[in-house]
């Protein structure tokens, strides 16, 4: 009798359970339930849950809204590309456009204030990877994802694209300042 032969006991499902296996199954089951409760519990008590607020959108629609915020709240321009730096009031909507191969515009936020960050892509999938915090969110074309963020530290943060999006992918970077 072995695992490569038919079970010698025709009624194998009636064999008693060994104590090692029984004990381990109970322990493993309890651990599985703890992990499940942990994930549900974090939705109730935790402060880091990814929002699911999503709208269908188009490139033109989203760009128009992003442009309106840029027109209203731009405080300066940076780099040779003259990328606008937007400083919106706390609690307001901020738009970030991912396109081959830029994040636009640069955003300036205030520490411990909450903002509604709208994300979409104009073309392929992109990846919003905030460094060095290491928060990573998928950015899918055609969908506007509204994420409430509350920066808890000040400094200069980079947005790296971490979803492959073609030949210029590795050069795609953006920035968020937190004051």
């Amino acid at each position, binding site marked *: 009798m072995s695992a490569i032969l038919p079970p010698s006991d025709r009624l194998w499902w009636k064999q008693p359970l060994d104590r090692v296996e029984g004990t381990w199954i109970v322990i493993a089951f309890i651990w599985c339930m703890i992990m499940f409760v942990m994930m549900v519990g974090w939705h109730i008590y935790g402060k*880091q849950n*990814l929002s699911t607020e999503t709208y269908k959108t188009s490139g033109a629609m989203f760009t128009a809204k992003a442009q309106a915020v840029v027109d209203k709240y731009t405080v300066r321009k940076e780099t040779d590309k003259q990328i606008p730096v937007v400083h919106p009031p706390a609690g307001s909507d901020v738009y970030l456009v991912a396109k081959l191969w830029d994040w636009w515009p640069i955003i300036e936020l205030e520490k411990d204030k909450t903002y509604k960050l709208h994300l979409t892509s104009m073309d392929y999938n992109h990846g919003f990877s905030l460094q060095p915090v290491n928060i990573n969110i998928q950015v899918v074309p055609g969908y506007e994802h509204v994420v409430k963020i509350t920066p808890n530290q000040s400094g200069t943060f980079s947005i790296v694209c971490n979803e492959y999006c073609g030949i210029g992918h*590795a050069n795609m970077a953006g920035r968020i300042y937190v004051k």
Partner: protein
Amino acid sequence: MTTTYRTCPRSGLQFDTEAEKLMLANAVVAVVFLLIGGILAIGVVLTRWPAIHWLAADTFYMTLTAHGIDMLIFWIIFFEIAVLYFCSSTLLRCRLATPKVAWLAFALMLIGSITTNVAVFQGESSVMMTSYVPMMAAPSFYLGLILFAVGALVGCFVFLGTLVIAKKEKTYTGSVPLVTFGAIVACIIAVFTIASGAIILIPTFLMSVGIVKEVDPLVYRTIWWAFGHSSQQINVAAHISIWYAIAAIAFGAKPMSERVSRGAFLLYILFLQLASAHHLLADPGLSSAWKVVNTSYFMYFAVLASMIHGLTIPGAIEVAQREKGYTKGLFEWLRKAPWGNPVFSGMFISLIGFGFLGGISGVMMGTEQLNMIIHNTIYVPGHFHATVVVGTTLSFMALTYFLIPVLFKREMIAPGLAKLQPYLFGLSMYFFCLVMMGAGTLGVSRRHWDMLMGGNPLAYEFPGAAYLMMGLVGIAGIAAILGGAIYIYITVGSLLWGKKLDIGSLSDKTVPIPVSAPSAVVHGHGSAGFAAPGTFSLAMVFLVSFVLYYFINWKYLSQVWGLS
């Protein structure tokens, strides 16, 4: 349909000679794809090693696409088809159903895999294995994958047909062996996987030739992953079956209890496929409830199943060893195991690495909120190299060392090298996975050509430790590739110039599996009423590492920016 049966003098296994040729053909093509994938791996690791940064960006992305597809799909599935034929026709001692159709399946898979490779190497299909729309590859890229999938599906049905024949011709009595049961689970998951692949790849193919206007990017991701992740679950079911088989072959170990092991396999059928959600946790548009239920395999029932297999396989070995008299202390059974036999050492290194590195990291990343701190970082390939390379590939390698004399009928060349190979390959892969996960924790992206980001003024300046980790990824990667090369040298070399062995007796009738007398369950050699106390203490070490690592990551998550 007439065929002959060969009884192997070394293992006592009986092979249908038609099935034998098919196993050989599928296994050989699998190894060829492993070779191609391994050569491509050199390009990948030497480019991601920052100090070398070898290939140009376009060549790198092309190489990475081909590496992923050749390893994850072609090497593994060709080998799995051989395993399915072995688990049905050989283990049940019956003729293979419709060998001609099985050759058709083989031909479709071969044509499909070559077509996709040609498409990738023409350079217009550097879309990665996932080929997320709206980024498009050449139509022949999708066509090749579809042909391959159809071939693999036909192979699955040949396997199922063989089971029917064995039942009808009464070549065995009672239930199928546990290993065959595991193969059935793998096959059921494979049918689900291939159907999902067809549902999404056919419209994408039609989009690439201009018939369909648009495939929604989010729908694509959702259904593609029902194919992409489930195909890895075929591997889990397949390599766990192989672990059980090797425990039986190397130790004569019998399952501690058929009921528990089969029950655990059953949980796989019911819950394992839900894990496609693991790839969608950071996506817009899917509800939290959907994510929580799916990512946890309902309520971690597939994790429970894997934890059970992780105990029962070494447990069965321990019981068998204790019966042989290795009863001193907790671990004499393990110390006195045949560590010089690559069939065993490969299997055991695979089991430990799969559990500790692949399993723990997989559950961590599959937790909805924790996923945000690793999604699309190089932590992800760190995890899946522990599951698919340490788990699946190393198990297949271990099984190959058993099959060289049994199926290939050749004496293994370079037995000294073979003894070393699982250690070199397995342990360098352990290290490779660990440093990749380390780099991912520091934010390094996967599928990314340049950590310096081409001098973009907004670029993130990665810490020195991240560069160090990526350098170590390069070194460990090269060591693992060397280990892979040794495996290919031994396998191909034995097949070509290994000493021919006695093929054994041929007969035109199958000998049914004799009915063995039921044996009493022996539990007299352990301690404290535990038949396998050593395995149980190893399991507790595993549990403690699991719990610690899990909560360390929650602690880390609690310190990042608030998100709601």
